[in-house]
């Protein structure tokens, strides 16, 4: 038995080899564990706790509920069935789903068209007043979204500001009906989410190296082509962030269609809200929420992948 080393010898030899070859690495890891790792955990802790308490846990509750069913009096009976998901993918909801995505898409495009020049102006020509402009973009956030949406009712209604001016100037003889139409909902969404588009756009335009644009000019590009070939591609991360920040909450919005909408403007958010409140079918509402989330996540995955690839090209 002399030819083969004992297991103790093997271990000792192995540790020596480790000490010799992986010494710096393991020492670094030890340091990380001993010091930085603890600090990192301490710093991460509150955020993780917050995420677990207010994101993971509620999502878990919704997930569990979504497999349950409605009790006789609107309570949730826990169980395991896919009935709610089968009901969620009901052709009846197709108009609501198409409408929600349609409204959100139009609103996102409008916020991009409005927000891009605004962000560009602030980033490039803002100068010393940059902060004032930015505060003006954010100022509406200081008022409740509800109150701001209510004030659109005052502006749009038939006895409202717009119609009063139109009729006073004799541009129209009868009030035009804007409120309680799809147009007023899209307008409300566009207005509400404009800052969500403007701020990320501003952030990426602000970082943009101006000498690249000048280089484009020097190389004979017109202002238009410099914008198309240099500025816009370089601000793509901002555009992606802005469209996501606008589109996702806009699809699920229920306050705007509720307040500014008409008989035919119900969106997914309203449908889900109704399950939780008046219909008292939390299980079904949970399944609808999860289905919406799944569809959105899938969409975002492909969008980011595609947009990301274009960004690199």
């Amino acid at each position, binding site marked *: 038995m002399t030819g083969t080393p004992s297991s103790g010898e093997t271990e000792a030899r192995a540790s020596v080899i480790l000490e010799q070859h992986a010494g710096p690495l393991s020492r670094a890891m030890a340091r990380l564990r001993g010091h930085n790792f603890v600090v990192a955990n301490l710093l991460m802790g509150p955020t993780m706790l917050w995420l677990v308490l*207010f994101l993971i*846990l*509620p*999502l878990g*509750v*919704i997930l569990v*509920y979504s497999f349950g069913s*409605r*009790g*006789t*009096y*609107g*309570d949730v009976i826990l169980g395991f069935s896919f009935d709610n998901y089968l009901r969620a993918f009901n052709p*009846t*909801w197709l*108009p*609501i789903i198409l409408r929600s995505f349609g409204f959100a898409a139009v609103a996102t495009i409008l916020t991009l068209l409005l927000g891009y020049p605004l962000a560009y102006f602030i980033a490039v020509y803002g100068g010393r007043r940059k902060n004032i402009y930015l505060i003006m973009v954010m100022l509406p956030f200081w008022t409740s979204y*509800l*109150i701001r949406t*209510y*004030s659109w*009712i*005052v502006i749009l*209604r*038939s*006895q409202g500001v717009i119609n009063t001016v139109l009729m006073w100037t004799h541009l129209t003889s009868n009030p035009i*009906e804007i*409120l*309680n139409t799809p147009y007023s909902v899209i307008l409300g969404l566009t207005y509400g989410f404009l800052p969500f588009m403007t701020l990320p756009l501003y952030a990426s335009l602000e970082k943009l190296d101006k000498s690249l644009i000048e280089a484009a000019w020097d190389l004979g590009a017109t202002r238009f082509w410099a914008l198309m070939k240099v500025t816009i591609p370089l601000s793509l991360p901002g555009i992606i962030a802005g469209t996501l920040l606008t589109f996702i909450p806009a699809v699920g919005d*229920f*306050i705007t269609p*509720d*307040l500014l*909408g*008409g*008989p*035919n403007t*119900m969106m997914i*958010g*309203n*449908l*889900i*809200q*109704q399950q*939780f*409140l*008046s*219909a*008292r*079918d*939390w299980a079904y*509402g*949970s399944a609808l*929420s999860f289905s919406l989330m799944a569809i959105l996540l899938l969409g975002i995955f492909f969008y980011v992948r595609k947009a990301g690839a274009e960004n690199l090209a």
Partner: protein
Amino acid sequence: MKRLDKELRVMVVDGLGGPMTRRGFIKRAGAAGLLVGASGFLAACGGGETTTTTAAGGGGGELAKELYFYNWSDYIAEETIPTFQDEFGVKVVYDNYSSNDTLLAKLQSGATGYDIIVPTDYMITTMLGLDLLQEIDLANVPNVANLYQRFREAPFDPGNKYSIPWQWGTTGIGYNSVKVPDFKPSWDMLWDEKYKGKITMMNEIRDVFAVALFRLGYSPNTIDPKEIEEAKQMLIAQKPVLKHYTSDTYIDELASEDSWLSHGWSGDVLQAQMENEAVLYAVPEEGSLTWVDCMCIPKGAPSKYTAEVFMNYIQQPEVAAGITNYVYYASPNEKAEEFILPEILDDPQIYPPQEVMDKLTFLEELGTDTELYNAAYQELRAS
């Protein structure tokens, strides 16, 4: 029940020029909270008073130091609570909600600590089904004898075992008598092509179906899928003439003449009337709904006996009349009549005449069959 907070409304209407009821505001804010925070989770964090149940039942007891009263907003007279506090030495902690859905969601998610809540008739059945209420010891509420007979034997709680009525009203049509000169008290008005774009319906599942069911001559509590389907088709046919579905903004729309015909609650329409005299309220001939909000004691109430003493106090004729004189809703208290202002007692919009009363029905909690209405309503709204 559906009275809006005057102060906030004045603030918003005068300040911003915008219509808003506190009820609508809280309803939406609450809904947002529910959707964001995984349903009951946030609500559960809300009412965190400790629960120390006093000996349940039993004739007497000692008055607690505090009474937690959870009621609809702006639904009480100014002097109601201060007088009780002075008389009984109990501090009343007064808190408000804005819809039965909010109240139920809060109780269901485990909020305890309230001694008295004021749900609407059908919601009492729901809450009993969910085992959320406790029996009232009527020996402590002798003034229950002051109630009209029909409130002593209400279908949802005969004998007032679990509920003591607070105030009641009806559902009907609020209309602008100048813009709609040919108004007749019929649900047909809400289908009239002449008033296209000036008609609103409530955004309440059962209430909306009740309108079509009454118009078809069926019961608003039917569970016959064929009748509900017929009602749904009738409501789909109504959509082109509708401005929108709303349970709160119609008050201001009636007042500002943006809407001329609104399906709504009696008290709400009377609010609009205070601002615009042309607005009137009528209960259609085909029949309509009546509702009554009642004081109940939730399970886990800290001071049941004090709650019963408070209920008895409310049913003193002068106190009950005081509330009606202030909030303009009808009182369930018959003995209160002599203290109620004559202009309220004689107003058919608040106290309907007998022939109208005969056609009023309560909504009933339908249990599992509620889903028939839920599904039909969503198909209606999605169409």
